[in-house]
């Protein structure tokens, strides 16, 4: 428990001193606030289609203008940003959970278990995620944010599995784990009580990467028109803009906000994960 | 030691920047070495031996920095060479067998090419055929078959790698070879054979040698003079036979007495106490907390390195007192 606490606290607080970390967290908080505070000032129901006049450039009435489907874009951004975050974090969390589990098992037990899990992990890493997601999403069609998160999570566990496995391998040889083993502690208890607590910072660090990857996959599906149809999302906004030729029609207000928010989001997650990598991660790019 | 020394180091200091502090890993070190001579340098881990070796070729990297001093080799002031001259000077005048020679070879290039590029860098006019002939000859000279040239480092055993490093060191017939613990990664039997090889080729090309190590037994067999380093300073220097017969510095005495008998090897481990941190050296003589002969003056005044007999220098108040070198 002590190890758990020091690791968790150490793993989350120390990096805040890093400028990359503070900028990243700052941007992320700003985006979360946009979703939390925005609805107090803006009527998010205007993000539904056919609720305002179409194709209006930004004005006092509609600060970010309106699109060809009759949605008010500021409302779409305020309603859509939390959806994107929610999907990404949910998918990332499930993915890291799966990955941590597989990595622990694989690193701790070694042998054939390890060989099979590692081979599957390495194989999955080389598959273009979009190819699989596409087939699934196109078959399921009417997806919502939660089911999309589930689909994406099934392809976001590999990095977590690799780092956790590498770390477990080295922990397994540590004297206190050996002691626990010699003292007749069961495998499950050793894994949960001795090894798992040390994985928390690493799992947390890979959660950021997995979330970013999930948002990337989600955006990929959305801009192909395979995103949720019933709620506004950033990626779907870009899809509609592209479909209605917003670019060549000069409707910059339509596609710039979602692009900008997504860029900021990816930047924030990258900054955070690179700051975390700096000390939590043993070499992620270890050789095969 | 000899009238016109090949190498003379004057008051050399090298330090590492650690945070805002500087750790003096080599502190005011002076010594000379004649052509063809073999000097051994011993000292506990962290006493600054490797730092000295690298600084002699200006191979030290940040955070290491040469603070002051002068290094003359065959009349060349090494610390004043510009980059181009330094490049020409390296290997053609001084060659290095680095500590941990196990990783000293580039893993992705064959042995022949790693030797050839060295020759090409210095002897532009040498033909490819001559280069290959030279490489084959050198490999044979260190006791390897010429087929080793076609292998990659990972295909060699530890002893073979070490021999390749020796062959590499003499490829340009330098005037000085610096061997930093050349055998520490090898097992005892191989150690002796490799040291013999090193001594042979060194004698053949007439180079001087600085051999760094922990192993007093091995030193006894391979060097003419021995220097002892403690916490960055040279504390004792003597011809090898004198050193073993009658060690002067209390630290040297402990080194010798901790050996079961002069013929047996044993690492420097049997001395009570710990070497102090370079960032927190005790006042006076750095050795005084561990010294059995400690006097009040040792706690306050740093003893200078003084010549007590011909070819013998010691930094110790007690010894200086006994020899009455201080009027």
């Amino acid at each position: 428990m002590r190890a758990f606490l020091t690791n968790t606290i150490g793993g989350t607080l120390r990096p805040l001193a890093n400028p990359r970390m503070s900028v990243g967290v700052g941007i992320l908080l700003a985006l979360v606030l946009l979703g939390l505070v925005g609805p107090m000032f803006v009527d998010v129901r205007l993000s539904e289609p056919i609720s305002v006049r179409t194709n209006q450039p930004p004005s006092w009435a509609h600060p970010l203008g309106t699109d060809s489907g009759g949605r008010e874009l500021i409302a779409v951004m305020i309603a859509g940003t939390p959806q994107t975050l929610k999907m990404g974090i949910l998918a990332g969390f499930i993915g890291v959970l799966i990955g941590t589990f597989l990595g622990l098992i694989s690193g701790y037990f070694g042998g054939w278990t390890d060989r099979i899990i590692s081979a599957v992990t390495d194989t999955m890493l080389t598959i273009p995620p979009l190819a699989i997601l596409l087939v699934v999403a196109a078959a399921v069609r009417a997806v919502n944010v939660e089911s999309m998160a589930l689909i994406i999570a099934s392809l976001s566990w590999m990095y977590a599995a690799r780092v956790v496995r590498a770390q477990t391998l080295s922990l397994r040889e540590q004297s206190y784990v050996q002691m626990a083993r010699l003292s007749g502690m069961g495998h499950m208890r050793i894994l949960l009580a001795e090894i798992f607590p040390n994985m928390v910072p690493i799992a947390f660090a890979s959660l950021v990467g997995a979330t970013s990857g999930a948002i990337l996959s989600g955006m990929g599906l959305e801009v192909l028109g395979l995103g949720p149809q019933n709620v506004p999302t950033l990626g779907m906004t870009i899809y509609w803009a592209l479909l209605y030729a917003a670019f060549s029609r000069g409707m910059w207000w339509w596609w710039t906000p979602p692009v900008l928010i997504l860029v900021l989001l990816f930047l924030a997650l990258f900054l955070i994960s690179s700051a975390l990598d700096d000390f939590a991660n043993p070499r992620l790019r270890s050789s095969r | 030691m000899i009238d016109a020394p090949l190498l003379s180091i004057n008051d050399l200091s090298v330090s590492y920047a650690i945070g805002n502090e500087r750790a003096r890993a080599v502190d005011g070190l002076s010594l000379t070495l004649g052509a063809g001579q073999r000097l051994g340098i011993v000292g506990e881990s962290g006493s600054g031996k490797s730092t000295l070796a690298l600084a002699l070729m200006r191979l030290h990297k940040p955070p290491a920095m040469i603070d002051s001093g002068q290094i003359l080799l065959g009349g060349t002031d090494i610390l004043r060479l510009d980059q181009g001259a330094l490049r020409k000077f390296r290997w053609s005048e001084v060659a290095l067998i680095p500590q941990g020679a196990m990783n000293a070879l580039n893993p992705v290039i064959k042995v022949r090419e790693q030797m050839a590029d060295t020759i090409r860098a210095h002897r532009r006019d040498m033909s490819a055929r001559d280069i290959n002939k030279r490489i084959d000859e050198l490999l044979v000279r260190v006791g390897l078959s010429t087929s080793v040239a076609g292998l990659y480092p990972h295909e060699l055993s530890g002893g073979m790698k070490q021999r390749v490093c020796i062959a590499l060191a003499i490829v340009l017939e330098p005037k000085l070879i610096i061997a930093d613990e050349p055998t520490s990664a090898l097992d005892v039997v191989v150690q002796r054979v490799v040291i013999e090889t090193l001594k042979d080729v060194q004698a053949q090309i007439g180079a001087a040698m600085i051999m760094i190590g922990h192993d007093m037994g091995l030193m006894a067999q391979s060097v003419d003079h021995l220097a002892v380093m403690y916490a960055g300073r040279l504390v004792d220097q003597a011809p090898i036979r004198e050193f073993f017969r009658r060690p002067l510095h209390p630290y040297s005495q402990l080194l010798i007495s901790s050996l079961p008998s002069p013929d047996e090897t044993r690492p420097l481990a049997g001395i009570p106490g710990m070497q102090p941190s370079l960032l927190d050296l005790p006042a006076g003589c750095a050795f005084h907390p561990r010294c059995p002969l400690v006097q009040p003056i040792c706690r306050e005044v740093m003893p200078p390195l003084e010549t007590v007999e011909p070819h013998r220098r010691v930094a110790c108040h007690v010894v200086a007192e006994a020899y009455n070198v201080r009027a």
Partner: protein
Amino acid sequence: MSWSYVLRRIAMFFAVVLCAVTVNFIVPRLAPGDPTAAVLEQLLSRGQQVEGAADIVAAYRARFGLDDPMIVQYLRYVGNTLTLDLGTSISYFPQSVTSQILTALPWTIGLLAISTVIAFGLGSVVGALLAWPGSPHFVRSFAPFLMVLSAIPYYLLALIVLYVLAIWPGWFPLGGAYSGSAPSFSLNGLLDLLYHGFLPGLSIVLAGVGFWALGMRGAMIGVLGEDYLTLAEGKGLSPRRIFFGYAMRNALLPQVTSLAIALGTAASGSVLVEVAFNYPGIGYLLFNALKSSDYFLIQGVAFFLVLTVALSVLVLDLIYPLLDPRIRRQ
């Protein structure tokens, strides 16, 4: 190179391909409703526009062979896919999915391969220079810029590039791969291809170069601490020889390993870049297939995407031992 290494890599290739085929087989069967229902519904909604709707339905029925046991269906499906019989496209009926894809694939491969090679090479050199103590000072000022680039996904960069270099100043075409109705094989035709391919290519290069530079910088810092680098310097080699022959040569090994892993992401990204630029590769084909719910074509594109990446990874894996002698005799 040992046979077991080669065989293992080839087995891995087939595992990936089989995995893709299996997903293609299972997913529509798990999805709610009869697999033919969606197709029928779609054809009905198009009404008389589609000639030979009956043929299509018949083709679908036969293809799914729904009365056979599952395992027979599966084996037949695997067999069909491996012989590149991927069914008939709805939107381009009666053309086969494979012929559609084979027309589009060269564009994708050309764009992706050229841009990825440039991004990898440029990124590796810049990354190596970032870590190299002897490189000029201005190189270091690239680092933050490269970090930002590596964080932004392909597709978003493509949109930004599209706007900043094509729409706004009008310097480049808004999309497509060539002027007119078909590419011509002349010098002008070639220049036209470059002109159209420049922005999609630039997007892929920009999106990749930061990633490769950061990776190389990390690998290079590791290599610079190795003993063989100290010795190389001690040998009096020229800085060029040390940089290329000793430092970069070794730091490239982990880069090539991660190239194999990053190819999937790069391929996914460039599919989306094609969409942004209406570039006539499989990404664009996919976009249209999705618009018209041409499910076989969607599956076909996904399969070819996996196949292309898996093949490239196989080639990389077989080349790798030539770069790293330590792998050869394992």
